[in-house]
């Protein structure tokens, strides 16, 4: 579904990603793990058009999306749930969700989609008129995920959803990610919470210093000495 080939990117003269290649097949949850500053968010921002690539290509559903503006990529069916939630704090919960359905095709179905999202997140329904700024971190993450679903995406790229959340809420977030997959949405999950991420994912890529240093199915990764040492503290 998504194929990144030999992607290099960075900010100005500072190159951050070096020949990164990865692949996400339909129906999978693929994890991208790595520490702070490994380049995870840079990779995601390059895929969704927020940052230009220096070289390499990105294909989605067999077609190149290189150089497309973010809104064009969103219209193709990629939903980027950004790091730090990035909800619209001065808008109501419902307006945030409506913004998620901004692409024309999604806008037509927004009533139905809204109903489904409210079923998944009943708390959002209860507080639909409230300003998003009044939400706690966990609630904001739920809103960001609900908003990401409103475009009826084929692929969801979720950047560090568990960041800064209490353990109980993190579990809830991971359960929602699994139920998103059950609804037929393919997921690329970027995380620092390595153990839980590998437990719910099918395959994983490990990014270090802007390079993919390991890839494989999650069981293999969990068993690897490098992962145990560097990420699990074992």
């Amino acid at each position, binding site marked *: 579904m998504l194929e990144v080939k030999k992607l290099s990117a960075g*900010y*100005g003269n500072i190159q951050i990603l070096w020949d990164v290649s990865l692949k996400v097949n339909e129906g999978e949850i693929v994890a991208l793990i790595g520490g702070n500053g490994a380049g995870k968010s840079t990779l995601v921002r390059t895929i*969704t*058009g*927020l940052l230009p690539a220096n070289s390499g290509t990105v294909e989605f559903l067999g077609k190149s999306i290189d150089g497309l*503006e*973010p*809104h064009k990529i*969103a*219209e193709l069916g990629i939903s*980027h749930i*950004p790091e730090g939630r*990035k909800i*619209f*704090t*001065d*808008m109501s919960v419902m*307006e945030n969700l*409506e*913004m*998620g359905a*901004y*692409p024309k095709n*999604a*806008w037509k179905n927004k009533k139905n989609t809204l109903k489904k999202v409210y079923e998944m997140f009943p708390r959002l329904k209860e507080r639909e008129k409230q300003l998003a*700024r009044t939400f706690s971190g966990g609630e904001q993450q739920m809103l960001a995920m609900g*908003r990401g679903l409103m*475009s009826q995406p084929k692929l969801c790229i979720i950047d560090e959803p568990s960041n800064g959340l209490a353990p109980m809420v993190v579990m809830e977030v991971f359960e929602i990610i699994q139920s998103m997959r059950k609804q037929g949405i393919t997921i690329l999950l970027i995380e620092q919470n390595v153990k839980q991420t590998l437990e719910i994912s099918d395959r994983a890529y490990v990014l270090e210093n802007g390079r993919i240093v390991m890839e494989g199915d999650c069981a293999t990764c969990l068993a690897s000495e490098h992962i145990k040492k560097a990420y699990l503290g074992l």
Partner: protein
Amino acid sequence: MDLFLNIFIGGLLIGGIYSLVSMGLSLQYGVGKVYNIAHGEFLMFGAFITYWLQSMGVNPLVAVVINAPLMFIVGFILYRTVFTGIRVRSPNPGVFESNGMLAAFGLYFIVQNIAVLIWGSTPYSYQYLNTSVALGPSDFHLNRIIAAVFAIAIGVIFYIFLASTRSGKAIRAAAQDTATAGLMGVDINFVLAMCFGFGAAMAGIAGTLISVCYPIQTTMGLGYTVIATVVITLGGLGSIPGSFIGGFIIGIITTGVAYWEPGLAVAAYYIIFIILLLVRPKGIMGR
């Protein structure tokens, strides 16, 4: 007591025009991130287009129908050509903001020179509904009352547009977080150009309303840019309701100061501006 009521009503009447000019600048600077020093020049052009149309027998308020779309198109094209180009070439939003301001500064001189070439620098005026109407304790000119009502109506219509339409919500989302609005599927370059166009159109409409009440001249623009800058700082950058309310507050304050000592009216803006930057840089409605 009558004196205060007079200042209050007089302030509200001029405040309507201030609100309109300021909402325009708020769209250009708060959303589009271009501090458009040439904002008042759109106002001046709007005033002169109205003058020209009324001299051919068109009702000055009807001139808005031609004036506003024309200014929108000029503003939109200007953003798409000049400012989008600068935005795309800027490595970060900070660089865009400063380079955009410098470009707007250049634009100010270009428009000024053209206007002086065409119209010189003498004042022009015409008579429209210059009768007096009792409002509160004293009489006010009917044209000023109509101009204020017109400005308020435009403000309310635009607020409803922002609150309830798909495009209006896209503008509000872009005002809060441009990059994330893009991720939602909003065509950022288009929406920012639209904001710049709406801002220019509001300045144009304000120009029409000013020409209805006061003499106009080619150098009139900069003063309104200054007032709008104070108002959007007071109201909170990018907050349309803030600019709307702020316009009336500044209108009342300056009317009061002008009553006491007309020479201090301009100094009063700057004093308010500097105090705001020190005490509450986010403005009354800003967060």
